[in-house]
C-alpha cells in the first residue's frame, strides 16, 4: 500500500496539514513521537492563540483541541509514540522508516509533509560554562514539567533570554510561587513582545537585565548560583562587571532551531538565515514531493501562521499527487539590509505570493523595497520579535526576471 502523503509531526502544522490533505481526499498517515497530539500547544496554557485563525482568544490546549477534534472526526490515520528514523527517496516514491512500541516499520508514500517543529538552543550553544548539575532546563522542558506533568522544577529561578517563551515562563514560575530573580538578555532590547514585558515581568516585579550575559553556572549537585556580567556594544563581557546571583534553577530560553536533521541527510537545499530548508511558494523543498511547514520551515511567532503553512503544504501535496503541481523555483528571492530572512526563497512569478520575514534589529520608519521592480512599502516600526507578512502581486513581477531582492532600509 502507498499513502498519498505521510505527515511527520502532530503539532499545529502537522495537524492542519493532515486535516486539509484528508479534506482534499488524500490518503494520509500522521506520525508523532509523543503520546499526545498538539506539539507544544498543550503545554502553552496561556491565552493569546488563534486570534487570526479562529477569531477567538484561546489557550494553547484549547487551540490544539479544536484541531485534534477535527482530525478525529475526519478519521485521519495516525500513529503516536512513533519516531521517524529515516526518509529515503526513490524517484517519485518515498519511504518513511519509524520506530514505535510495536517495532520498526517502513511505509511507502507519494509525498511527505515534514512538520517536525523546532528544538531549543541549550546552554552549551550559548557558551555558558561551569558545572553540570541538576536544575538546568530549557524553557520548553520546564513548561512540559509544570503544565503537562504538574512538577515544579525549582524555587529560585534565573531565566536566560527574554524571548516570548522566556517571559511567559517567568510569569508561570512567579504565579506558581517561585521567586524569579532575573531575566538576563544579551541584547540591549528585549526579545519578546512589549505586551509580554508588561504582563509577564512588570506585573510580578521581575528584574530584566539587558546587555548582560550569564557566564557560568555553579553548584555541587544542584545549581547554587550563576555568574553574570555586563556586555559592551560588541556583546563582549566587560571585565570588572561580574556579579554572582544565588539561585537553584536556570532556565535557558535562547531561541529555537528548526529540526531538519532528516532533510539535511537527504541533501535538501538549506537557508543559513532561517535554519530551515529553501522552499518555493508551494512550500516544496529542493526534492520534489517533500513539503515543509511550521517551525521546521522557519521559526514562527504565531500559531496562526503555522496552521496556514500546514494547509498550503497539504494543498501542494494534493497537486503533486495528481501530477498538476507546477515547478515554481524560477525566481530567487534575496534578503538584504536590515532583513534577516524571507520565506519562500523561490517564487514562480505566476501568482500572488505572501512572503514571511523577520528584521535583524528594531527600526522606526522602515522602508521595504523590492529593488528590481522599485516597489516600496513603509512601516512605522519593525522589530525582530514580530514577523511580518508582505504580499507580492503577480502583476508587479516582470516576466524576464530571475532574481528579486527585498531590502529593508
Amino acid at each position, binding site marked *: 500500500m502507498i499513502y498519498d502523503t505521510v505527515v511527520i509531526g502532530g503539532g499545529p502544522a502537522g495537524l492542519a496539514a493532515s486535516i486539509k490533505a484528508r479534506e482534499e481526499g488524500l490518503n494520509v498517515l500522521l506520525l508523532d513521537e509523543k503520546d499526545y497530539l498538539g506539539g507544544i500547544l*498543550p503545554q502553552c*496554557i*496561556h*491565552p493569546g492563540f488563534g486570534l487570526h485563525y479562529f477569531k477567538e482568544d484561546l*489557550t494553547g*490546549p*484549547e487551540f*490544539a*483541541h479544536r484541531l485534534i477534534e477535527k482530525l478525529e472526526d475526519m478519521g485521519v490515520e495516525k500513529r503516536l509514540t512513533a519516531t521517524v528514523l529515516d526518509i529515503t527517496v526513490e524517484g517519485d516514491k518515498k519511504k518513511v522508516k519509524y520506530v514505535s512500541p510495536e517495532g520498526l516499520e517502513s511505509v511507502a508514500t507519494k509525498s511527505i509533509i515534514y512538520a517536525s517543529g523546532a528544538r531549543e538552543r541549550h546552554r552549551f550553544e550559548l557558551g555558558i560554562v561551569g558545572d553540570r548539575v541538576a536544575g538546568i532546563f530549557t524553557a520548553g522542558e520546564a513548561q512540559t514539567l*509544570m*503544565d*503537562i*506533568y*504538574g512538577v515544579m522544577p525549582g524555587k529560585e529561578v534565573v531565566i536566560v533570554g527574554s524571548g516570548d517563551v522566556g517571559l511567559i515562563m517567568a510569569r508561570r514560575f512567579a*504565579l*506558581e*510561587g517561585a521567586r524569579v530573580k532575573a531575566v538576563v538578555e544579551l541584547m540591549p532590547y528585549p526579545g519578546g*513582545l*512589549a*505586551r509580554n*514585558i*508588561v*504582563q509577564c515581568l512588570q*506585573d510580578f516585579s521581575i528584574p530584566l537585565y539587558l546587555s548582560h550575559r550569564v557566564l557560568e553556572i555553579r553548584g555541587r549537585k544542584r545549581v547554587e548560583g550563576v555568574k553574570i556580567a555586563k556586555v559592551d556594544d560588541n556583546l563582549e563581557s566587560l571585565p570588572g562587571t561580574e556579579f554572582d546571583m544565588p539561585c537553584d534553577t536556570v532556565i535557558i530560553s535562547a531561541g529555537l532551531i528548526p529540526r531538519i536533521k532528516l532533510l539535511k541527510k537527504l541533501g535538501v537545499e538549506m537557508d543559513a538565515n532561517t535554519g530551515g530548508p529553501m522552499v518555493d511558494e508551494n512550500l516544496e523543498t529542493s526534492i520534489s514531493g517533500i513539503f515543509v511547514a511550521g517551525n521546521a520551515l522557519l521559526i514562527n511567532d504565531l500559531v496562526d501562521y503555522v496552521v496556514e503553512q500546514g494547509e498550503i503544504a497539504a494543498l501542494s501535496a494534493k497537486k503533486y499527487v495528481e501530477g498538476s503541481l507546477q515547478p515554481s523555483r524560477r525566481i530567487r528571492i534575496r534578503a538584504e539590509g536590515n532583513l534577516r530572512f524571507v520565506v519562500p526563497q523561490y517564487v514562480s512569478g505566476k501568482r500572488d505570493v505572501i512572503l514571511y520575514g523577520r528584521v535583524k534589529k528594531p527600526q522606526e520608519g522602515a522602508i521595504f523595497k523590492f529593488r528590481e521592480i522599485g516597489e516600496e512599502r513603509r512601516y*512605522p*516600526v519593525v*522589530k525582530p520579535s*514580530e514577523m511580518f507578512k508582505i504580499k507580492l502581486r503577480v502583476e508587479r513581477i516582470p516576466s524576464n526576471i530571475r532574481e528579486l531582492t527585498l531590502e529593508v532600509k
Partner: protein
Amino acid sequence: MSKIYRFTCIVCPLGCYVEAELEGENLKIQGCKCPRGEEWVRSEIFEPKRVLMSVIKVKNGVYPVVSVKTDRPVPKDRISQIMRFLSNLEISAPVKIGQVIVENVLDTGANIVATKDVEKK
C-alpha cells in the same frame, strides 16, 4: 499630591511610551497615539485585570494535572489569592474541556474552566 505612571502601551505593536499623571480623580495621559491606548491606560490605572491560567491536580487521570483558565479577566490584586486557592484543589478524572471547575472563584465573578480533556486512567 499627584502620582505619575509610566507604561509601554500593549494595545498594538507600536508600543507607545506613555506617561500618565493622576491628581485626585483627574487623569492626564501623554504619549498615546490612539484612543484605544488611552482606554487601556485608564483601566491599567483604575482597575487592572488579567486572564489567569494555571493547572489543577487530577486524581486518577492519564495526566496528573489539567490546565485551567479564568473565563474572564480578574482583578490583578486578587491573582495571588486565586492561585493559592487553586493550589489546594484536586478534582477527579475524567475532566472535559470547557468544564466549569469552580464557579465565581473567590467572588470575582469569574469561573475556573478546564482548557483540555484529561481522561480516566
